[in-house]
């Protein structure tokens, strides 16, 4: 699909990086402020989708992009499951156990395993929404040929 006008392209160039950074902020502070993995992941995917919409998809190799984002999505989920199963080996031997030290209230590095879960779920949600978007674009390109 074709890109948009020069004004949109310039504005997106300035803004997209900040949107991505905001998404990373929401993901990492998931145990202190509202948000967490899901909401931050959607914001991160939003920055990529903004770039694709503004610049058009003609200069991208869509199939390779989509296989790349699918790979990230599957790897991130496997890491989340691995972290969950790692609770089975230590401590009270249950699934999803919170076994890292919990620290003090309100600091960034605290609350055990929660920031790790947030980060990987954020990567996974961002990759999967990007995959959905790319799959729909690929399908539309195939129809219009």
């Amino acid at each position: 699909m074709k890109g948009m006008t020069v004004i949109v392209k310039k504005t997106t160039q300035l803004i997209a990086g900040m949107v991505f950074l905001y998404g990373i902020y929401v993901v990492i502070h998931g145990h202190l402020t509202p948000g967490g993995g899901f909401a931050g992941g959607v914001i991160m995917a939003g920055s990529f989708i903004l770039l694709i919409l503004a610049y058009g998809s003609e200069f991208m190799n869509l199939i390779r992009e989509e296989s790349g984002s699918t790979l990230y999505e599957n790897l991130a989920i496997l890491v989340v499951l691995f972290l969950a199963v790692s609770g089975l080996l230590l401590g009270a031997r249950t699934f999803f156990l919170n076994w890292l030290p919990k620290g003090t209230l309100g600091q960034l590095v605290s609350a055990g395993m929660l920031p790790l879960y947030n980060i990987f779920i954020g990567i996974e949600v961002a990759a999967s929404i990007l995959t959905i978007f790319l799959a729909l674009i690929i399908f539309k390109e195939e129809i219009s040929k």
Partner: protein
Amino acid sequence: MTVYLLCFILFLVGFYGVITRRNLVKIAISLSIMEVSIFLFFALIGYIDGGVAPIVDPSDPARIYVDPLPQAMVLTAIVIGLATTAMLMAVIIRIYRKYGTFDIREIRNLRG
């Protein structure tokens, strides 16, 4: 009591849209309206009088907070609704390619 009644009226508006609209995309949008009304209902259930948002303030950790469990349930249900809507949209695009129309009265291949 009137806020719960308004949630239910929004649910019925979405339900009316699912039943009477002919365009496939409008049926999908009406399903989204129905699920938004349920999220509103969940968020209203957890209200406790005099409570504030459930983010623990380190300087004063013993205030009255609003119930955080319905908010967690709504977050999960929003993600599930996103997955369902994405699935529905993909099927609608495929139907448009096969049948050439968005009208639900033309899509009646299966009978009996």
